[in-house]
């Protein structure tokens, strides 16, 4: 069996890199490195040495101009070929919050059926409330999306922390995203149905999209933060809910990634 080697990109205002590392540590990854993007660009660190790459949450470039846009420009321009190779090799890429924004704005999500970088056909824009908010929501995984990240995940509560999380796509792309089962997670209401209603849907996303994958399922982007629900005490109701497991439900995603990397990459 192979090893799960995780590279977590840092720099320019990325700020969830440490706790994302903790999540992989708890999930048992064999190697975890937090690496400044410039060290990948200048060749000091080789992406080839890893099989899981994370674009963590944060505020790259302060969300100026548009969230994820300028970091996306830099990454695509200066290490686009390396990313292309990594994703073409079907290695795993996870973008959380700002990382999801970067992936969408670089055109990696939804991307292309026959390649990696596509045009930007979707966006993540200002929440309908026009506010940045930190709140817990319930998301449901799309059972028809066969991404290795999602194996065995149904629905769970998790924090969203963003001001620009409203997923919008051109209508033909949206149809394709749905019909090709690229939707990974949707915001759901009390009954478990996807919803447009605030605050269950915290931003007004089209199709209540909270996360999506590329066509091959090896790239997952999501607005919610599974990395900060890896143990019970991170849940807002842990002092009153008796049935909570010691480990948080967000951990499953990281366990899946580690397992898949070990077995297949």
């Amino acid at each position, binding site marked *: 069996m192979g090893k799960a080697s995780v590279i977590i990109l*840092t*720099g*320019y*205002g990325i*700020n*969830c890199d*440490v*706790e994302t590392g*903790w999540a992989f540590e*708890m999930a048992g990854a064999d190697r975890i490195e937090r690496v*400044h993007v*410039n*060290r990948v660009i*200048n060749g000091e660190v080789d992406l080839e040495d890893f099989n899981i790459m994370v674009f963590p*949450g944060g*505020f*790259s*470039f*302060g*969300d*100026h*101009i*548009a969230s994820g*846009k*300028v970091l996306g*420009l*830099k990454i695509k*321009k200066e290490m686009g070929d390396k990313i292309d190779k990594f994703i073409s090799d079907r290695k795993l890429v996870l973008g959380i919050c700002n990382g999801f924004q970067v992936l969408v704005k670089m055109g990696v999500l939804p991307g292309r059926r026959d390649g990696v970088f596509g*045009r*930007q*056909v979707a*966006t993540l*824009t*200002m*929440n*309908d*409330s*026009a*506010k*940045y*908010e*930190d*709140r*817990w929501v319930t998301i449901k995984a799309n059972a028809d999306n066969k991404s290795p990240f999602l194996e065995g995940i149904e629905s769970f509560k998790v*924090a969203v*922390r963003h001001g620009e999380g409203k997923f*919008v796509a*051109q209508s033909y792309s949206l149809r394709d995203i749905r019909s090709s089962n690229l939707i990974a997670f949707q915001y759901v209401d009390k009954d478990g149905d996807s919803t447009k209603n605030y605050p269950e849907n915290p931003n007004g996303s089209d199709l209540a999209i909270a996360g999506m994958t590329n066509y091959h399922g090896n790239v997952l982007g999501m607005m919610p*933060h599974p*990395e*900060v629900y890896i*143990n*019970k*005490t*991170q849940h*807002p*109701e*842990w*002092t*009153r809910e008796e049935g909570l497991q010691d480990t948080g439900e967000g951990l499953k995603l990281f366990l899946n990634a580690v397992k898949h990397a070990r077995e297949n990459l």
Partner: protein
Amino acid sequence: MVFRVEVALRKDVKDPEGIIWQKRIAGDLNITDVSEVRVVKTYLVDFNDIEKDQVKSFAHDVLADPVIETFEIGTALVDNFSFDWIVDTGFLPGVTDNEGKTAQWGLSLFCDKKQNDHDKVFSGRKYLISGNIEKSQIEMIASKLLVNPLIQRYAVYNSKEWFETGKKSDFIPRVKVESTPVVETIRLDIGDNDLVELSKNKILALSLEEMKVVRDHFRQKEVLEKRKEKGFPSKPTDCELEVIAQTWSEHCKHKIFAADIHYVDDTTGREMDIRSLYKTYIKKVTYELKEKKPWIKSVFDDNAGIIQIDEDTLLSMKVETHNSPSALDPYGGALTGIVGVNRDIMGCGIGSKPIFNTDVFCFASPYYSGQLPGSNLMHPSRILRGVHRGVKDGGNESGIPVVNGSIFFDNRFIGKPLVFCGTGGLMPLMINGKESHLKKAVKGDLIIMAGGRVGKDGIHGATFSSEELHEGSPVTAVQIGDAIVQKRMLDFILEIRDKGLFNAITDNGAGGLSSSIGEMARDTGGAVINLEKVPLKYEGLQPWEIFISEAQERMTLSVPSGNIDEIEAIAKIHEVEVSVVGEFTDSGYLEIYYKEMKTALLDMEFLHDGNPRYKLEAVWEQKEVEPIDIPVYESLNPAMLDMISRVNIASKEDWVRQYDHEVQGRSAGKPFCGAEHDGPSDAGVLRVSPFKKLAVVVSHGIKPSFSDIDCYWMTASVIDEAVRNAVCVGADPDFMSGLDNFCWPDPVYDEEKNPDGKHKLAQLVRSNMALYDFCRYYEIPLISGKDSMKNDYGSGKNKISIPPTLLFTLISRMEDVEKMVSMDFKKSGDVIYLTGETLNEIGGSEYGIYNGLHAEGFVPKVDAGKFKKSYKAIHKAIDMKLINSAHDLSDGGLGVAVAESAFSGMLGAKIDLREVAVGDDVKRDDIILFSESNGRILLSVSPENEKEFVSVMKGTVYRRIGEVTESGYLKVTGLKDTSVVNLSIAELKKKWKSFMSGMN
């Protein structure tokens, strides 16, 4: 060539920001005829060697979102929109423009241009406003809402004017300073009046006595000889005076806390002489506790206090105020406040990593409807919104969660809002085999400035905050931070720290390089500085301006010369600018040059210890307690609903939820708890890491309204409140450290300008007495603190002084985070207990103020011996997992606490006021329900744990007062066995949540 790029959401896309502005125009300015607002982002590209096609491609690929936005080069974009008015806005020259900086950076990368000093992008906003409104209304919308004229310019056009003139006008806010650097000398051989005038004109904020000491210093033979030997002019230079003024400012030297005070208690006739409040009370209590609390690692001589929380972890904390800047530009002031205190943590010990922020604000009511007392003042709702946005952006963009805070409203904060920003940080106990709380610059080390560049921003900030605000306050005091530049710097510093590449570090805050280098040079006894090496934002700064500028995002490091190359290489990775600006020496002097110009030669000893000590008078007169006059009502339902929605009690969820409170993954006790995630938690709890059970608890107490009666008991009360809050969640009462932040009105007597100065100083003395007394009783060392002493607006008769305010912040510890308790009721059938005694203490309380009282009635006191025993018992019960919920009784007393616990748990409650332990003179239901007596905690306990709970609590005052119910109602039985409150939880909650929401 300058190109204009304009970007907007497509016409068919909803503009959420525009909708918010429309709402604010209606809500704040009462202008209801606006039918639509749309926002256009503008970028003025001022680059050398760039083609229109390149700008167009950049706009297409980067500036405009292809899915929802549209753009044009030039001004044609708005032709596609309908509007009646355009408000075109942009920053004034020299104001930090973060969006513009990012656009410039992106465009350079986009067209493979090297970053250079000339190329700039200036960002702005255009607001397209539709509706039947007058020009005067548009002017008001622009100047009162859309821009702050201190930092932004704007132009207003109706649609006709727009097409005639507006389209053609372009204002490029490039800084143009026509001046060559010179060093001037200043004559001090002048009369007393002229010295005073000189201090005032140069904004030195030095008193006559201080000016005389400076004058005499430069007359001394040894000083003159040394200057001659070094080739310096005999008269002091502008830079020297500025450095002395900055170093001796109230902000940096804490002259009032260091003063000799003669204190007279007119009531008892007692007199005493106090040599320094700081030494007599604050330092003393900490030193007395040091032996008992071996975990105190570093107090009083670093940027922050440092304690040890387990075998290999240090925790540091600091709280700062940023009041004056926040009054002028609420957003920039608060933003620099938060990122500034983050730097204190980055620069404490050998460098800590910030892991949480706290924020506490004091404002006038956002619903204030009177006349503003000065034309340069902003409406409190605007200050609240701006400060909130500044703290939000500063914390969120830096990736540091806000875990604890509050907002206190009192209309006496109309002239000076208070903005307290705190930060806690972690570092390993040892780094590279060295104790990380220690650091020392070494002779021969190079002085490195890292981070942002220097501009005129923030010049005279340190001296300015020591002055009352007036109409002519300088706008250079306003600055805006860049959280991302700072985040890059933090990543860089942690990396070079772990590699052991520097010997000492401190931040550039008040006083800039003057303060940071001046302080570090004390380690070696001198420094040589070459100011021309300091990178500038733009040309034209005078040498003295470079040295005292408070431009943000900078740290100063002391680096062995052999490590420079490695530091520069790592800095390049992080895109952090580092410059060698001098060297630490042991010459005994601070020697400053600008190229060959001799800029300053200052004796270190004189600079740091030469300032004369103030001699101040304090007179205390204990007022008679005035009786309270409140009508008696049969039903307290109306009072209960009014109390729960009072501005100081109502939920601030809408505001707090906009702070990231979970980033970094440590949050275990969040600001919100309960069944619907909206219960107001008593304290923030952070798990040190997911692999440890150890947690840090952060709480605070603040109660300016008690100061109207006696600052001694105000202080005792806020200490007790902070302790109570921490005890509620499960903190260990034996492991608590405090931070004291004083914000006072000017306590220096002046017959004309400050006739009640002696009383205000007496209030300060009494506050310090209580600080000493109660920190000693509770065994809380004071690890850090700060004072801000001139919180007044105007002078003489028209002066508006803030109520004396002490923020007491507490950091404590719990060994097992899984034992944490939240404030929400958990299960119907649980038994409700109230600990402590309820006394006739309505003075300064919310219920008193609600009834129109001001300083009448008894102020709540603290019986520390009794309370401590009770807290220890509660801690034990929590440790034994006997308690299901615990909630502190503070603003609004028992009534508010029980309602909050009930609706946070979405459960009902019934309590009986006859069961409450009360003082002999307490005979009224409303007093029991709303008294703010200290030392009380509301608990709920499972019936099966009651027996054990009772045995743990033995020897303390506690009563079983009711039970948690399924009913969805809060039912209170009064002293006469009648129902005095019977309200639905849903109604209470709705009231509580509605008051402060929808404003931001």
